[in-house]
Each structure stands twice: as C-alpha cells, then as structure tokens.
C-alpha cells in the first residue's frame, strides 16, 4: 500500500480507528486539535461516534461510561485538559476500565502556552489523581510509531483492564512524516465478560471503584498492585541506539529522543562513544534497559523538554552507581541538536576529573 503523509495528531486518530476504537469523547485544545478534527471526519465513516463534550471533565466521564459498557474508547487533550481529567482517570483505574488517553503536552504550569513540552511526565507516570494506582504510559517518537503504538495502547488497556496514556508533545502532534498504514484489518475486540451490558439472567455486573469496607478496599488495592507488578515485569519497552561501547549514554523519550538520535550520529562521526536509551514505556520505566550498559558507561545524560522529571527515574535505576547529568529546556522552548552536542562535549571532556 502506498505511503501517505500524516500529521502526528492525525496518525493518532487513524491508528485508533485501525485498532478498533469506535468512540471518541473530547474537547479541543492546542496543540492536539487536529486529532478531534480528524476523528470528527473519520469515525462516522466506520460507523463510530465522535462527540465533542462540554468539558474535559465530561469527556473522561463519558469514557468511563463507554468503557464500562465494553467499548474501545479514547479521549485526548493537552496538559490543562488532562489535569481536569485526573479525577476520572483515578476512577477508571479503580474500576479497572480499559481506555486510551492521549496527552499532547504543551508548556505549563497553568495555562502556560501552546508550544511543545514534556513537563507532564510526573503527572503521567505518578498520576495526578488520588489513590494507589498506575497508568501505563507510552511515548512514541515518530508518526509511524504513533500508528503502531495506538494498537499496542488499546491491546494493553484490554489485557490489563487499565487506562493507557499515550504521551507526546506538540512537535510530534504537529509534524508531518510519511507513514505506511498497511491493510485495514477487522479488529476482534477481546470479550469483556465484566462489561455492564445487561444481566441477562447471569451474575450482577457492577462497574465501581467504591469499597466502603476498609478490608475489602485493601484487598482491591492489593489485587491492583499484583497487576502493576506484572506490568512492570512484562511490559517495559525501549529502543537502544548505538549503545555498543558507549561511554556516555543519553536517555530521552519522544521528540527529545529524536534530537538525541541525531546528536548520537553526529558524535559518533566525531569519534565520541555516545549512545541512546529511548524509553517507549514511561511507566513502567524500562529499568531493564540499563543493566547491560551500566558497567561500560561512565555516565548518563538525560535530555528532556522540562526542568528534569524522567531524570528521577534514571537516578532511581542507576542508583548512584554512575553520575546522571541533566540537560533540558522548558516553557515550550526546544533543545536543538546543537545544544545537546555542546552538552555532550562539555561532559565528555570533563568526565573522570
């Protein structure tokens, strides 16, 4: 099939449709508005439903309803809207409902601006909602990867009955790249015996996160914890780039990783042993990626479009065995390749002193 040129935001929409998602509830916000715009056209073509809600709070609760009724469902927003959705995300996690939530991150805090950022990492991986819960977080770095990861996102949501977040940034949403969509397949959505689709003479099906008796809530929490442990064991994803013999290992995700990849190429040309670990799952954080390189690497440089959030997970993983440095731009400013090269050279020259 011929390649087409897509914006990241459109690819999220197309990827969702091809993953069998037929319901979208959301509210426009820059820099992800092309996504609802695309789905408003595309979902009716496949017999799906696109609905612009009155607010993000409404959207996430519509997702709760649709997921509870057994639908493959998605919502999307950017930072400020995702903040509004936190209560709903906690409820979805508590009620073990599968759904996909997209955050195309922009500059914050507060209203911030519409420029690209990665400063919602804490919110995505630690949860801005209340209670002991986890959300699986996927971070694509190209338009093609968006298409591929949308299928993964919906599958993981189903497999673990858990919300999955796809975290990108404005650049990823706005940029255009050629993609191979492949054949459009008929998606068989796994059976959902728990869905509230009517009792039909069987057992009562209740979608709820309310456990009034503390003993019961503790049991529920422990059951969720078992699930999270399994996810940590099974679902860490990452990409390794030029790690062989790397003395300095860059760690970056999404757009920052694209920049770092170009930086690695440039540094290798100049004879500097630099490599890259690109986390694809932000939660679970790909700790397994670090074990093979920790002995040979002399240090790690984390590059983020924030004041340093993922760097904490890298430090927890490296656990003091090697120095972990940080370089970032924030407020919607981007580190360009030249900036990162400069940081690398500064560290490269200074290491071991």
């Amino acid at each position, binding site marked *: 099939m011929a390649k087409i040129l897509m914006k990241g935001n459109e690819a999220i929409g197309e990827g969702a449709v091809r993953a069998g998602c037929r319901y979208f509830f959301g509210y426009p916000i*820059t*820099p992800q508005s092309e996504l609802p715009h695309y789905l408003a056209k595309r979902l009716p073509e496949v017999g799906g439903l696109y609905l612009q809600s009155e607010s993000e709070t409404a959207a996430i609760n519509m997702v709760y309803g649709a997921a509870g009724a057994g639908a493959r469902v998605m919502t999307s927003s950017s930072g400020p809207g995702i903040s509004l959705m936190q209560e709903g995300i906690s409820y979805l996690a508590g009620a073990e409902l599968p759904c996909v939530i997209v955050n195309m991150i922009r500059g914050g805090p507060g209203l911030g601006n519409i420029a690209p950022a990665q400063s919602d990492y804490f919110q995505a991986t630690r949860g801005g909602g209340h209670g002991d819960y986890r959300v699986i977080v996927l971070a694509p770095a190209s338009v093609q990867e968006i298409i591929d990861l949308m299928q993964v996102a919906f599958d993981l949501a189903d497999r673990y009955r858990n919300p999955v977040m796809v975290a990108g940034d404005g650049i990823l949403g706005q940029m*255009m790249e050629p993609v191979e969509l492949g054949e459009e397949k008929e998606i068989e959505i796994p059976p959902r015996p728990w869905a509230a689709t009517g009792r039909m003479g069987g057992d009562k099906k209740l979608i709820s996160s309310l456990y009034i008796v503390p003993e019961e809530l503790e049991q529920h929490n422990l059951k969720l914890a078992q699930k999270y442990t399994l996810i940590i064991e099974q679902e860490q994803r990452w990409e390794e780039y030029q790690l062989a013999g790397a003395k300095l290992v860059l760690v970056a995700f999404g757009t920052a990783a694209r920049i770092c990849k170009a930086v690695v190429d440039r540094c290798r040309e100049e004879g500097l042993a630099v490599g890259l670990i690109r986390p694809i799952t932000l939660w679970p954080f790909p700790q397994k990626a670090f074990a093979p390189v920790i002995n040979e690497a002399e240090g790690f440089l984390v590059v983020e479009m924030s004041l340093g959030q993922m760097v904490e997970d890298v430090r927890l993983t490296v656990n003091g065995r090697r120095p972990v440095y940080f370089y970032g731009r924030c407020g919607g400013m981007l580190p360009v390749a030249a900036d990162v090269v400069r940081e690398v050279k500064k560290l490269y020259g200074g290491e071991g002193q």
Partner: protein
Amino acid sequence: MSLSLKRITIFTGHLGSGKTELAINFALSLKERGLPTSVIDVDVVNPYFRTRLVREKLEQLGLTVICPRGEWMRADIPALPPAIRGVLEDPGRYGVFDVGGDEVGATVLGRFKPLLPAGDYHLWLVVNACRPFTRDKEGIISMLEGIEKACRLQVTGLVSNTNLGAVTDEETILTGHRVVQEAASALNLPVVMVAARRELVEQLRPHLPRELPVLPLNLFMQAPWQVFS
C-alpha cells in the same frame, strides 16, 4: 517560470498541503524578479510550523513579512494585523498570502473579499495527493468546495505539490500530479505550477509538459533534530 503574475497571490489548501513553504518560495521568486513583495501570514489554524517563525530569515532575504508582532506572534488567537490592508491597497506592492488549512483556515479570507483588487489576484489551491483527505479527485473537489464556501471566493488554479516529506522522489510527484491534473480537468481549472524540492527539479522537468512551470523549493521549516548550528 512562464506564469501570469498578478499583484496578489493567495495560497489556500488543506491542512498540511504545503502552503507555507510554497508561499515563502513563491514570494522569494517574485522578489528575485525585483518586485517589492510582502508575504502575509494569515494562518490562524496551525500553531507551529507557520511563516512567522522564520520572519527574521525572510526579512534578511528582502521580503516584508506581515504577521502578528511581539507576544501575539505565538498566541493561539485569530489575530490579523492591520498592515494586511496596506498590502492590499498599495498598487505598487506584490502580496503573497499564506492561509491556514482547510475550510477553517480559509474563513479568514472572506474578511478581505471586499478589499481584493478586482481581477488582479490569484487564489490557488495547493494539493498534496499524499495527504489523507485529498488522495483522489473526489477528495480534492470536496476540499475545494469547502474552502470556496468558507472564503466566499472562487479558486482560480491548482498547485501540484504532492510530496512525502524527506522521502519524496520523482515518482511521488508525478503520480500525485496525475491525480491533481484529473481533479483540475473535472473542475475546469488550470494546474498553474508543480512544486518540488530544488534537487528534484532537474530530473522532473523532462516528464512534465514544457509550458508547465516548476517552482523549486528550498525548505524553511526545520525540525529541532535538524538544527546543528
């Protein structure tokens, strides 16, 4: 290029069709002919890759850039600077309009309808046949109708701008061009030019009708991983 020039040229089209790069390169081609040229950014749809971001570079190249100034430049609001009117009313100045994508972006144009010099403007629809909603004749016609309705103006020509970004080759452009040509024939409109990255122009030229102008493009919008200086 053997193009009939008019004082005002407006590039409209679907989201991501390549209007910004076209407007910039076309404006520079006018400037190279010694014509005083302004490029006007009326893109109120696209939040990122728009003309205003390369304003300084274009001004160094001798173009006048009309776009919201200061803190409004990056605001997510449909602000249109009053200087646009100056370009429309100055009979000695050439204006190249970069309009936002789809019918949503084209709505802005309606506001200038009464000010456009009668018979002295082009309204060109930029088409990339590799984009999701304009891959065939029907899609292109439907896009054109939506845009015309939104701006209350008639499109006067199509620009053949099929590309796949960095992986575009001769075949991409020629295959797309056939689709654009088919739509143009059905619409009874001319294809006014083909656009292609500068390095592809030479190999492309023999495969296109002699009288069809090819606009060589130097790309101005860059991703952060392309910036090494």
